[in-house]
Each structure stands twice: as structure tokens, then as C-alpha cells.
């Protein structure tokens, strides 16, 4: 994994972690945009980068960064060292519905540009790199989103507080956060009562899984790395007891 000294320096300020099970409830004022589920560990990774780099961007890298999170690590991929964090996906609760919002990008006013002969010029709006665009984006409204985590609430609060939105197109007002509520939980369960995964889990970490349901996908930040066989959410799996601690 790739290291960034600014992140390492920030994480060093945490001291010893006090990890406890918590139930996380997220309420948003507007619909949440995006193509997949909301991952608590993905959101915390983003919060870590924002806090450690004070808003500066992290250089793009095909190799994942080492992003320690204030969560219990349940398993590490022996090949890459990537961690499986103790956090389930944020699932919609209460009244909920999926839909679509389309955003548009339109051509600039023609009087902005001139040709070399001084005439007003507008690039073509129907083709080419400057064309008008209408981009549909899946959105979900919900009374709330809920996940369970096993982590240090004090540090998690620090990482979540700078975030104003979740999901895609936050700058356009989607996924505007009202509040995160953390409630104490007696136990953390990676697998629900029916034996189904509550987050994507790499099959390499599992004692058994439903072979027909396994697919390639992301399982840890960055979630765009989707070339690992995983058991997706809702798949019947057996989590090895020896990985519990």
C-alpha cells in the first residue's frame, strides 16, 4: 500500500483506540445520489483524507493508500494488506424510494468567444467535447440510513464533522447531511440473523459462501477497486469465528 506522511502524522495523534459497537443513523435533508450503497468505511476514509490534508487532494494512485480508520480491523488481505473494517453498509430505513435526477450542462453563451477574425463563435452544442449534456443520476430518498460499526466514537466524530454531504453531486445539494446519530450497541454483527452479509466481504475471508452469489466487486476503500471476488450484501455466508477479534 502507498503511504502519505500527512496521513500517518494525523493518525499518530489519535493515540490508543477505544473501539466499541455503535449503531449509526444518518439523516439527510435531500435525496442521496449515487450508483451503489453508502459505505461507512468509505465515508470515514474520505473524512480522514479531508482532515489530514486539510482539504487538499490526495494524488491519484492505482495503488491504494494506507488509510487507517478508527474501526476494528476484522481481517487483512494477505496479498495486499488491505483491511476489512468492522462496519456494515448504510442501509435505508423507514419510508424510502429510489428515483432519478437528471442534471444538465449547457453550452456557454456564444458572445464569450471570438474567432481569429473577430466574429462571435460558439462551439457545437450537439457533438464534440463541448456538447450539451443531460446526465441521469440514480437517487434515493429515505427517512434515514442505518449501519452498525465497531469503532472509536470520539475520532469518528472528528472525521464526520467536516463532511457536509454524502453520495454524489453534493455540490448540487444532493445528500445534504442533517446529522449523524451514534447509539451504543451491545454487539456488532457482520452477518445478520439469517446468516446474510451486511457488507461486501471478500470470499477469501469467509469460511463458506454462496458460490452462485459471489461476484467481482469492491470491499474496502477505495471501493472502485472492484476486481476481487466478494460476497455481496444479502448473500448467505459463514464468517470464521477465529476472525472475530
Amino acid at each position, binding site marked *: 500500500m502507498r503511504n502519505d506522511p500527512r496521513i500517518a502524522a494525523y493518525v499518530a495523534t489519535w493515540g490508543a483506540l477505544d473501539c466499541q459497537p455503535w449503531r449509526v443513523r444518518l439523516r439527510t435533508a435531500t435525496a442521496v445520489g449515487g450508483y451503489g450503497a453508502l459505505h461507512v468505511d468509505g465515508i470515514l476514509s474520505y473524512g480522514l483524507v479531508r482532515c489530514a490534508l486539510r*482539504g487538499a487532494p490526495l494524488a491519484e494512485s492505482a495503488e491504494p493508500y494506507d488509510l487507517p480508520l478508527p474501526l476494528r480491523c476484522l481481517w487483512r488481505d494477505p496479498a495486499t494488506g488491505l483491511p476489512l473494517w468492522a462496519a456494515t453498509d448504510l442501509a435505508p430505513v423507514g419510508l424510502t424510494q429510489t428515483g432519478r435526477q437528471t442534471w444538465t450542462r449547457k453550452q456557454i453563451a456564444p458572445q464569450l468567444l471570438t474567432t481569429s477574425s473577430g466574429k462571435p463563435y460558439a*462551439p457545437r452544442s450537439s457533438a464534440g467535447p463541448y456538447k450539451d449534456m443531460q446526465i441521469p443520476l440514480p437517487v434515493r430518498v429515505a427517512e434515514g440510513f442505518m449501519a452498525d460499526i*465497531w469503532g472509536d*466514537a470520539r475520532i469518528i466524530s472528528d472525521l*464526520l464533522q467536516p463532511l457536509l454531504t454524502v453520495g454524489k453531486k453534493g455540490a*448540487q445539494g444532493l445528500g445534504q447531511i442533517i446529522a*449523524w*446519530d451514534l447509539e451504543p450497541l451491545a454487539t456488532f454483527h*457482520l452477518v445478520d440473523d439469517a446468516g446474510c452479509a451486511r457488507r461486501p466481504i471478500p470470499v477469501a475471508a469467509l469460511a463458506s459462501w454462496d458460490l452462485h452469489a459471489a461476484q467481482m466487486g469492491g470491499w474496502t476503500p477505495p471501493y472502485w477497486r472492484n476486481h476481487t471476488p466478494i460476497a455481496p450484501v444479502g448473500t448467505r455466508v459463514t464468517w470464521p469465528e477465529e476472525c472475530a477479534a
Partner: protein
Amino acid sequence: MSTATPSRSAIRITPAPRARWLVMGRLLSNLSHGDPDHVTAGNVAPFRRHMQIVPLDTPAAPVTQDDLDRAMAACPVPRAIADYFAALDAPQVLAIALTRLFIAQFAGGQGEGLLSGAERYQRLGDRLRMAASRTLTLPAFWSDLCRSLQVGGQGERTLGLLTLLSMPRVLGQQVLVTLARETETCIVLAREWHETVKRMDAAYAAKANVPQIVPDQETLGYAVETLPPPASSVIRDVPAISGNATRHSLLREPGMRHLLDRLDIAQNDLTWPAVAQLLGNGGSLAKGSAIPPDEIALGEAIARDYPLWELLGGVTAQFVLPGSVGRAVAWMVCRENAAPLAALGITPEHAAEELIDVMTSVHFADPPMPHATEVLVQGAEIAFLFEADPYASDLALGALACALETASAGLVLGGKGVTGHGQVALTLPNDPSFTLYARQYEDYLASRKAHLRAGLLDGTLGTGKGVCRPAEKAGKGKAKTEGLFDAE
């Protein structure tokens, strides 16, 4: 896995933006704001609507067994097709019955009326879904559907229709949910129901040369306990101003005009399309562009030099600038938005649909072409909320303030601006820091005017590299640079 006993307190985490400014807007003329997601859904171009949770403001009376029995008795199902309804619940059957009544009223006796043909049923489906998604009661739904299909109130006042329209509100809302989510199924079964009822008539069967169906109907029975419990809120499509339009009209476009004005750049001085695009709509990558190895450093330098792009982000011809630090959201001042508006100290008076009107324009051709558009009426209010990331710089906040000041001098929001639509009067925040940041930004632009001006005109954005120039390509034995407008 963990067996710790929770003896801890709950924790609430609320976002902490660097700045949060509320700008109130009042429409001086009707606002047209089209909905790309419903562009083919009606004869009237619909106003943009967003799906959201709407609290029900008055407690609904629970449905009694008598209410349910009366509604079911109003729509007896032909025994010949009763099997199709066996697995359905009461709201589904009532939704299909209501759809059937609409088809029966307006399809014409031979099926050759208003609703003949596949395309017509496609349109019925679009409008049925739209009406069910944006109304809260069955009478409002029926009116909306009749209006969108331009059939007015021509239909018969049948006992079945009157009974269904007067069913308890809670039951009506469950019917609307079914109509919005299962529109196509409702239409398929309603058409079958309608056709079966027609074939129960001996005269029709003889005339259409089809076998007559035995005229036998049954009333389906459901226990009231099988209904879902009354909801305190529902999901509806509510008229809305998109955050994208808000960002463009209140920040990017006025921010651009302010920047060009302060740098003494006339509108037609710009010659690099990528610069104009970056200023005007955020830009896009050029064909064949390669991301430079020092992309992060270049992006940070550009955002530092031009705080407007720290605020809004964008794309040069070669790479994407670091993410934007500004967030924009617009709340129509209406009862459906009472919760978020209460947090801003605003109490709405009107329901959203009360603020929507239909305006018909005529394109003078031969023959004249009338077209109707839904508009948000003059006098309606919009609360624009702008938030800045905790790590936003003072100058980015200044760019935000200056953009809003520029917009307040004459904002046109939405479409049809050339015909006078969408004029908005803005009330800027009465916050000393707003003015302070604006002056800091003005001073900054004045102090670095020559550098910033040159960066926009030469396509380097002050980096010394052609980040807004098209990629160089080889041709005819020597390297040549693509012309300014080779995208054409």
C-alpha cells in the same frame, strides 16, 4: 463478536461548515424550470419536481371495515377475470379499478376514442404515474390526470367513480402509492377489466363479432387489518429548483461576469474555448488530452490563483481541478419543505402545487403552434442556502460573496429568460463577514490583476503551461498545434 454492555451516551454529530449563508429570492416574473426526467410526460411541459418525503400535516382518520367494504362494492370484478386479482391486495385492486374507470370514461365505446393504440396507453401511463407521484389525495389526482390529458371534466358522474374518489384519505394514499409504483400493471389489468366488461354486453359482442362473456361480477372482500398502517409521511414529487441551476445561475455565471469585469476582459476577448467553458459551465476534457504528471500541484496552483475555481471546481482541457468547496441547495418556500425551512427560520404558507400555474404561449407559424408550460408563479419565494467546506479559504468565501452580489444586480433563473421569465430579486445575507470576505476578494483581484488576466487570455491559467489549450498532435511530418476551434 463484541459482548460489551452499552453504558455509553448517544452522540450526535452535525456538520460544521466554514460558512452558511441564506439568500432569499422572490420571483418578479414567472419561473420556467423544465424537468428532463419528465419531458415527454404530458401535453404541458412539466415544472421540475424532485422526489422527497412529505409529512402529512393533519392526522388521518383510520379506515374502517365499512369504508373498505363500500369502496370494494363500488368496483365489482367480472368473475371471468377474478383469478387475476386473487393475489392482489385492496389498494392494488382499487388502483386498477380507478384506472379502469378513467379508460371507460374516455376511451370511447369501440376502443377507438382518446385512448386507442399503444402510444396512447404509453402516454396514459406517463401521466398516470406523474399525477399519482405529485398529489396527496385521490380528488387531486383525478383532477391532475384529467388536466394533463386535457379531457377536462367531461366524464360521467358514475356511482363507482364518486365512491372511489370519496374513499378515506389514508386508503386513497395507499392507492396513489400503487398507481405511482405499479403504473404499467395497473393499466394492463385495467384494460383487460374494461374489455371484459364491454364483452359482457350482448350488443357490443355481436357488433364486434366476439364471443359474449357471461355478465357475472363479484365483489372482492378484504379485512381492514390487512391494510398497511396509516403513514405520517409519504414520498411525493415536489416542485423544486435544482442545485445545478442554483449553482450555475447564482455562482458560476455571475462569478464569471464579476471576474472578467474586474480583470478588464471583454466577453469576446477570450479565444481559448476551454477557458470560456471552464468559466461558463465548468468545462470538459479535450479530445486526446493526457493528464500531466504534476496534475495535483497544477490544480492547487490554479485554485489558489483563481478562488472562484476553488469554490466551484471545474475541468481544464487536460485534467480535473480539485473538488469544489461550495455547496448550493434551493428550497421552494412551500409547506412540503416546512422541516428544512424551519431550520432556517422560515414558515411557509402555501402548498407547492398552489404555486404552480400553466402558461400557454403561441409560436407564430402557419398554423400557429401553441405550447403550454408549467411555471412557478410570480411572487413565489425561494430560499437559497450556500455552505462552504470547513477548509475553504477566505478568498473562496469572497468569491462566493462577490458572485452573489453580482447575481443580486439582476438574476435570471431557469428557462425562457429572453421572454422575461425567471427574474428574481435576491436579499443577501446581513452578515458582516459576507461583506468582509467580498472586499478581501476584490482586493486580491486588484492586486494580481495582470497575472490573472494574462492566465485567462493565454490559456495557461497562470501556471505557465497550456492547461487550457488543446493537445498537440503530429501531422504532415512536423508537430502542429490544433487550431483554436478544431473541435468543430
